[in-house]
């Protein structure tokens, strides 16, 4: 599962996800990819589940790039605990994603295989996505 090796601050503020992705919104490495159409926090587990779905469907052919990294710690209070007494303990790491952000890229597999693999990956994610192809791609 993706998570930082060490962090400078164990707890961070929530922050806001405004507007569209101003960077990471174009295919940079592979030929096919999926692009987020909504904003959400992707947890390390969701990213890993999507990666496994792609790898399984592509049967270890081709290459895959994960374009988001969960580096934001999320805290949670234990169950049945009264409010107050400080912020909860770190529970997971998430990657904030805004519309337009490329999430996964693949290369080295045929169009149909890549499309199906990325469709399966998208089902593991909490955002609606669209399948995108590199602009200079020719079959």
């Amino acid at each position, binding site marked *: 599962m993706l998570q930082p090796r060490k962090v400078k601050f164990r707890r961070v503020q929530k922050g806001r996800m405004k507007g*569209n992705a*101003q960077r990471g919104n174009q295919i940079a490495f592979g030929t096919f990819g999926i692009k987020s*159409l909504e904003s959400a926090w992707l947890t390390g587990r969701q990213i890993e589940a999507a990666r496994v779905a792609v790898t399984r469907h592509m049967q*270890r052919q081709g290459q895959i790039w994960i374009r988001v990294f969960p580096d934001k710690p999320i805290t949670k209070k234990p169950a049945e605990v009264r409010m107050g007494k400080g912020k909860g303990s770190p529970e997971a790491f998430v990657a904030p994603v805004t*519309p*337009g952000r490329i999430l996964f890229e693949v290369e080295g597999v045929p169009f149909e295989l890549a499309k199906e693999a990325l469709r399966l990956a998208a089902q593991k994610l909490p955002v609606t996505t669209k399948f*995108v192809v590199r602009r*200079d791609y*020719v079959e």
Partner: protein
Amino acid sequence: MKSIEIKGQLRTAVGKKDAKNLRNAGNVPCVMYGGEAPVHFYADANEFRKVVYTPSVYLIDLNINGEACKAIMQDIQFHPVTDEILHIDFLQIFEENPVTIEIPVEVEGFAKGIKAGGKLKINLRRLKVKALAKDLPDTITLNVEELGLGESIKVEAMEVENLEFLNAKSTPVVSVIITRAARAAMNAAAAEN
């Protein structure tokens, strides 16, 4: 180099509101610079399909209100979500001045390394070159027949007449990488010996 003609109209007004109206009407606001003064114009979005959604690079014969000039596409902006073209920058070119442009790489031949179980990897799909417009080729062709397993062709090894390559010299353009299966076979052979 191949060229393509695009007809444009001069923009009467500039600014966000005007640009938005142009986009809503199916046009793309553009600018051309590199000449005496920048020229703001617009053209139909469909005219750019052949230039943008292709692996080839074109010289563009711009016809703005009947005035012809040569240019190359310098920059292009897309909408982050819908991927529609928002704006295009053109750089006017002159016959006597060299231009810097990215030319696509074309690979020919069947590498030795692939027969040995390797896989051809194109590290750079386009190479940045500097040359006069008349000397620009459509593609840069690389013959990979002699490329063995684990070998690569670097930018420094490439020579094309009248072209200056601007990428870092040590960057590999194409390489034959060793696949997991080939590595396992090599390890098995080494263990037997």
